């Protein structure tokens, strides 16, 4: 593969009590190739994202981003290097409106503390409105985020991550909580937005239809380790996957 | 509505202040009294308030002062210094009181003295003990109608040296605030001047309001000083004495307690015989010269009926302040040809004033400090009282034990020599005689 390696983990290992959440995980994520992570619950998918973003510290192993070691850095430092994250449960600023959530993110990105400028007047406002349009949430820009339906909250959560203009975006089940009829709509919006922003994405996903349509590569997780990796076509036809993963999901 | 009233009051104030002299006789003579009605020091404030009410009632029944009845407004010092100052201003500027009695706490005296001077209102520091105020500043409107810490401590040293001349070592357990620190500075300076060979074996300043002296008592028992001084008062003193007597410390050391007169009744049998007690003046419900006086005993009985306790020194202090007020007005009225005096005339009349509260006569010196005789005694058990009373009492001459005008107490005390002890006039009294 010619694409440059963005993120690379070597020998990640962690366990909680008796549960093995990561066991010798070696993963490479390549620029421009969207990776879907699939696998049964408890396989360690979220833990993988937590380790990559510094929220959980591994017992052993290393994480490199763009060639730089980030294993024991904090989420904040890793974010500043260009890794953004969207969450399974949207992590929003509950008392702020959708637009304000994005404006805070944009101010954070640009280090704009500006103690006497109103948040609503920062120069990134137009850019953020555009981002809201991109995720199809412009019409709820002024609404408080805790009043919005889950689907829109997920999109805003992702938009916050996109607002940081990351090189790599890690998404934990972007379509969970979204009505199944809307999932493809949401993913269409997202893919468009990701493409426009030239962001590589990694997403944890349970819906194989989504994986098939939107992923460039798939990694199958089980018992804290990557069991298989390949293109969606290869993976989704693999008998083990059909038995252990898809079987469970259907 | 309130603002309208205030405005009217202020307008009147402007008019009257223009004619501060030769004022008309007012409908009432208003005084503001600050006292602790909450917090630990309310053991002093509450009896003083009760006494003030009783005394004002009886003064008013006899025509008040120059025919004008007195009306008192009380301020709770327990509400904090800030609140006291705000109330003080309100009483002076809004209620337009004629005089202020402030205060019990030395800290509050420090605060109100400059304020009284600014507001040009007659202020009696009716109970606080700090000797510093008139030594560090001079005032026109501020007077102290009783003694201060220096005569109180010096007389204690004298009493101790006269009754227990051979003691060698002393320890101190005082409350950790200005009174505790200052009184020890005065006491130790005087003691070192009068008996240079005494060893100070321990100095404890436990936190004000501390509930537990166990550790200090353990140490004192290990050190076994001949004498233990404590100028504490109220709950702190009670706690210390009780814990000390429970653990036998009172058997091995003599306690010297300059403020214990105010705790005698509460302590009951916990304070055993043989310990030295001061009265912050000649304030004692069995005052050897007064206990045969029917007015005095009638007051003591009435006070007991009202409050359930014998009067303690703040009651005497209150009587002195009220009597000083009466004396000053009467003197000013006389000087004014029988007409009601202006405020400044009353202040003028304070110079050299002598007045008599429940105890002996007190005289105001030229530095506005009152001179008062000092009574101390040693505890005994006596029939008719289920608490310790005083025996082997000594009365010291106030003039001799008060810092001379213009001198700073600590410096003056430092210049005393052991001969001083033999030069002071002492009158002796026994319990029951």
């Amino acid at each position: 593969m010619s694409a440059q390696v963005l993120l690379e983990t070597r020998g990640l290992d962690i366990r909680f009590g008796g549960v093995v959440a990561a066991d010798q995980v070696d993963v490479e994520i390549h620029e421009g190739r969207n990776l879907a992570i699939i696998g049964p619950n408890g396989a360690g998918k979220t833990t993988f994202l937590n380790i990559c973003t510094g929220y959980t510290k591994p017992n052993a192993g290393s994480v490199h981003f763009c060639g730089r070691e980030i294993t024991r850095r904090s989420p904040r430092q890793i974010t500043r290097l260009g890794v953004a994250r969207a969450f399974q449960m949207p992590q929003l600023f509950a008392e702020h409106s959708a637009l304000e959530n994005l404006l805070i993110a944009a101010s954070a990105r640009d280090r704009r503390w500006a103690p006497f400028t109103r948040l609503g007047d920062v120069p990134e406002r137009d850019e953020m409105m555009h981002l809201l349009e991109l995720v199809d949430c412009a019409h709820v820009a002024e609404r408080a985020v805790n009043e919005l339906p889950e689907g829109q909250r997920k999109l805003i959560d992702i938009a916050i991550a996109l607002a940081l203009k990351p090189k790599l975006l890690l998404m934990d089940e972007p379509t969970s909580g979204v009505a199944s009829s809307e999932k493809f709509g949401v993913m269409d919006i997202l893919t468009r937005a990701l493409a426009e922003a030239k962001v590589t994405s990694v997403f944890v996903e349970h819906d194989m239809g989504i994986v098939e349509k939107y992923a460039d590569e798939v990694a199958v997780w089980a018992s804290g380790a990557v069991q298989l990796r390949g293109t969606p076509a290869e993976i989704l036809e693999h008998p083990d996957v059909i038995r252990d993963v898809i079987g469970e999901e259907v | 509505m309130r603002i309208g009233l205030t405005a009217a009051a202020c307008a009147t104030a402007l008019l009257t202040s223009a004619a501060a002299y030769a004022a008309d006789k007012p409908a009432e003579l208003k005084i503001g009294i600050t006292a602790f009605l909450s917090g630990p020091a309310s053991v002093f404030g509450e009896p003083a308030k009760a006494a003030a009410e009783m005394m004002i009632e009886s003064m008013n029944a006899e025509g008040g002062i120059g025919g004008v009845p007195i009306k008192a407004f009380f301020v709770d010092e327990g509400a904090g210094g800030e609140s006291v100052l705000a109330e003080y201003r309100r009483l002076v500027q809004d209620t337009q009181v004629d005089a202020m009695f402030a205060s019990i706490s030395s800290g509050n005296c420090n605060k109100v003295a400059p304020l009284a001077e600014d507001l040009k209102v007659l202020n009696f520091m009716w109970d606080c003990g700090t000797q510093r105020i008139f030594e560090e500043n001079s005032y026109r409107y501020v007077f102290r109608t009783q003694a201060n810490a220096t005569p109180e401590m010096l007389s204690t040293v004298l009493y101790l040296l006269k009754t227990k001349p051979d003691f060698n070592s002393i320890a101190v357990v005082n409350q950790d605030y200005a009174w505790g620190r200052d009184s020890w500075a005065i006491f130790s300076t005087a003691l070192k001047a009068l008996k240079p060979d005494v060893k100070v074996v321990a100095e404890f300043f436990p936190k004000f309001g501390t509930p537990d002296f166990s550790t200090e008592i353990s140490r004192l028992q290990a050190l076994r000083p001949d004498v233990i001084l404590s100028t504490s008062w109220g709950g702190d003193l009670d706690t210390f004495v009780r814990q000390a007597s429970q653990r036998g410390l009172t058997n091995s050391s003599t306690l010297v307690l300059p403020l214990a007169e105010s705790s005698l009744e509460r302590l009951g049998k916990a304070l055993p015989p043989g310990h030295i007690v001061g009265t912050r003046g000649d304030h004692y419900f069995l005052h050897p010269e007064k206990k045969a006086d029917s007015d005095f005993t009638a007051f003591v009985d009435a006070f007991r009926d009202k409050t359930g306790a014998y009067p303690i020194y703040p009651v005497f202090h209150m009587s002195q302040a009220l009597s000083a007020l009466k004396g000053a007005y009467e003197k000013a009225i006389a000087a004014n040809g029988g007409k009601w005096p202006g405020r400044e005339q009353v202040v003028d009349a304070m110079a050299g004033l002598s007045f008599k509260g429940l105890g002996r006569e007190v005289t105001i010196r030229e530095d506005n400090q009152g001179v008062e005789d000092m009574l101390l005694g040693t505890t005994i058990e006596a029939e008719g009282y289920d608490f310790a009373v005083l025996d082997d009492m000594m009365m010291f001459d106030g003039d001799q034990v008060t810092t001379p005008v213009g001198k700073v107490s600590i410096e003056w005390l430092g210049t005393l020599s052991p001969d001083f002890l033999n030069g002071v006039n002492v009158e002796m009294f026994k319990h029951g005689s």
Partner: protein
Amino acid sequence: MSLRLAVPLILLALVALLPTIAPWSQVVLTIALAKGLAVLGIVVLLHAGQVSFGHALFFAVSAYIAAFLGKAFAGGELITMILLGTLASLAVGLLVGLFVVRYRHIFFGMLNLAVSMIFFSILEKFYHVTGGSDGMQVARPSVLGVPMERAGFETLLFYGALVLCIAVAWGVHRYLESPIGHMLKTIKTNETRLEYLGVSARRTLLVGYLVSAGLCGLGGVLMAVTQGIVTPEYAWWIRSGELVFIAILGGSGSVAGAFVGALVYEVVRTYAAAFAADIWQMVLGFFLLGIILYASSGLVGLYGKLMDRLEGKHKTPAGGAKQSMEPAQ
């Protein structure tokens, strides 16, 4: 001009004029303004969802600085006192802040309490330096080199404080509306996300903490020169509790509420102490309970509701000058 805007302006004018008709109120009002500044400090932290039960510390630090300056320079200079006092509070705020911003909620509150109690104990214990529990006199300072009489000084303090408070309130309001102010609020709602934006929650809180320490410091100097005396009581935990009390009374999170609360509190306290001397604490206690149970948005919230009713609106409108001073709840 709308009624909603007119009433506060009329109240402000009344406060400004009151001392000319009731001179004794001048000092009470100055004290209320001084406390209002400190309460504003509490309000800033409330935006981050944190409650400090030790902010009296900063109040006391600057007050003692003023007292020491006055002692060292025989009176001293008001402007120097204000500047150095506030600076000292900021310095202590930085020192304490670096430690306490690692904690949240009860721990944050209790650690602040502990630090302030340490300072309180030191003030009480080191009698020979600090005057112990009796405190220190604050000599009346000169103002820009001009020595002052009491009356003139008090008037100047009052109007100076009033102007200062208006300016500071505006500044704090702008700070809270700014990006960094909004980031402070996200510490309350979602600190994890803030970190995932690449922003240090601790540093953001530290900035807020410094602002609040500075505000308390400013209030402390003002209080010290108004009172003419400082005592360790300035740093006592009950005093910190009082600041939080006033913040809630005024309307938690409201800039205007800090001052409204402080004014009302001082008046209630003064009158409760004067007319119910035995039970003034109880009166305040019930007052506080009533506010929390029946009007938890505080006086400013009550005012908002009243105005809504007067204007015939049943739902809270989005606009309005007063409204914008309140945080989104």
